[in-house]
């Protein structure tokens, strides 16, 4: 008996599928067309042109650039950071000279002001002397307190989000929902919560609960609950079904299956999502403060409206440092879990 010949047999046609089919190329062309049209609408061409001129002006030092000028102006008005805080003593209620706050001292400043003398109708130079309390790290401390307050808002927003999203996730996972109706209702609530941006719900909640952290916490919690509900539910649906079947076979009910076959599988992922939400809530908490929902955002908005750009710079650096620290801590925690 002859061994079968090496190489492909002639009667069977072996052809590999092509990498680029006509459909892929067509799809690619459509995407390019969409990008070109939408790019025109959002002035992407002008963006590239302005950025290029700004870069060339900065590099060569010749010519004019609107963008470079703008950025330089912002930079110079932000710098230096505002660290100290100065308050006129006359404005402090029940000021106690014998007990000054730490590291602070009292400065006496004399200011010359021109005023119109009503009798002589001449401009007189009047010198006013006032005492000021100067705290060298005062504003930094104030920002730190506000950042902690913002973190507290974010933390509680996350806690309430978890409490809302856990039952929602149970009912909006197709393999756990007791019936079709509960599933649909839970899914709709989750989508609805996710569809409303924090900033928008904060606007309404500030009207309902007044200025302050309550509105902020609730706004963050509602949006994050929609986010967590979706992701928790998807993990429940995607969990390995073999352990679930094994427990069903020994007569475990739905709740026990969830606790013993699903929860151990998804726990690490849940903690990762929750940490991300905490991180995101902190960043969003700074934004919703702009509409009066408490925290550093409210301070930022106030300083920005008063053109105190040095203060704004301190706040921005503070936010950046806190986000960085949260990010590092959660990355470390996540590495431990997996």
């Amino acid at each position, binding site marked *: 008996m002859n061994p079968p010949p090496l190489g492909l047999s002639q009667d069977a046609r072996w052809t590999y599928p092509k990498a680029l089919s006509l459909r892929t190329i067509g799809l690619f062309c459509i995407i390019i067309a969409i990008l070109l049209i939408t790019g025109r609408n959002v002035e992407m061409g002008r963006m590239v042109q302005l950025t290029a001129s700004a870069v060339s002006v900065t590099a060569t030092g010749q010519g004019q650039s609107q963008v470079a000028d703008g950025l330089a102006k912002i930079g110079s008005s932000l710098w230096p950071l505002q660290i100290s805080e100065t308050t006129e003593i006359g404005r402090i209620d029940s000021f106690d000279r014998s007990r000054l706050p730490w590291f602070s001292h009292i400065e006496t400043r004399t200011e010359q002001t021109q005023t119109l003398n009503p009798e002589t109708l001449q401009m007189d130079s009047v010198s006013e002397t006032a005492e000021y309390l100067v705290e060298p790290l005062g504003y930094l401390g104030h920002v730190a307190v506000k950042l902690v307050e913002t973190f507290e808002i974010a933390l509680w927003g996350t806690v309430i989000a978890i409490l809302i999203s856990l039952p929602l996730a149970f009912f909006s996972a197709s393999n756990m929902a007791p019936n079709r109706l509960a599933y649909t209702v839970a899914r709709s609530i989750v989508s609805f919560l996710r569809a409303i941006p924090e900033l928008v719900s904060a606007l309404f909640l500030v009207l309902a609960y007044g200025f302050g952290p309550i509105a902020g916490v609730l706004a963050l919690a509602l949006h994050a609950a929609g986010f967590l509900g979706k992701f928790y539910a998807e993990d429940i649906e995607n969990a*390995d079904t*073999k*352990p679930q*079947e*094994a*427990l*069903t*076979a*020994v*007569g*475990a*009910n739905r*709740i*026990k299956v969830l*606790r*013993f*076959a699903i929860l*151990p*599988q998804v*726990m*690490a992922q849940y903690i990762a999502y929750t940490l991300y939400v905490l991180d995101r809530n902190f960043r969003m908490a700074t934004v919703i403060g702009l509409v009066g929902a408490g925290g550093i955002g409210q301070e930022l908005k106030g300083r920005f409206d008063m053109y105190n750009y040095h203060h704004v710079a301190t706040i921005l650096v503070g936010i950046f440092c806190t986000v960085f620290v949260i990010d590092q801590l959660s990355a470390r925690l996540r590495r431990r879990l997996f």
Partner: protein
Amino acid sequence: MSPLQPIHVAFRTVSKTFPDGTQALKDVSFDIARGAFCVLLGPSGSGKSTLLRCVNGLATPTCGEVFIDEQAVTDKGLPQIRRKVSMIHQQFGLVDRASVAENMMGGALAEIPTWQALLGLYPDHFKTKACELLQSVGLSPEHLQRRAGDLSGGQRQRVGIARALMLDPQIIVADEPVASLDPRISQEIMELLRQAARRRGVTVLCSLHQVALAREHADQIVGLQRGVLIFNAPVENLSDGDFSDIYDQEPAA
């Protein structure tokens, strides 16, 4: 096994057609005596798993019935039946990320009140039992804390067997318990299952691919091909030809 032993599990004209139209079982009828070790042989897709799953209600026959102790398996009776019937799985059915200790408690869930289970407050007698069973399948105390996913395949199936014994079952259904293990470990696991069952008088219905293992461990062998029962006999009555028949025949197109 003497033929006078009372019947424990009885299949009566069991047929199963899946919603997509595939017929997994056609009129399968046979009996298993109390305490017997019955092995199901048959190629992949011959309906072995479906037949096993009909015993504990994970699958419901389209027509025909399964009887356990002369009681038909029905949806209503499932909680009682599932306390009597344990299952061992091909892919072990363990939660890889959970500890062996927690996986073991999974086997006793039917007897632990829900709130206690949720809080992880397991009754002491179950904890003791879990340890005894793990020792009896050849695992040591340090395995208790380990994640199931960190164990070797053989060790995982040992946990699977120990878990199946948590509620002192009368029947164990094993769905290709050694399909993902190497030959030596397969031999050990089958030995273990056989001994554990014999010591407790448990009836076993086990599907297998390995004819050699079946001959060595089974009392009774049932052959399935494309959902049809092709033989059912005590192991000593079967010839080599009978075995080769099940796997040799090409499935009809």
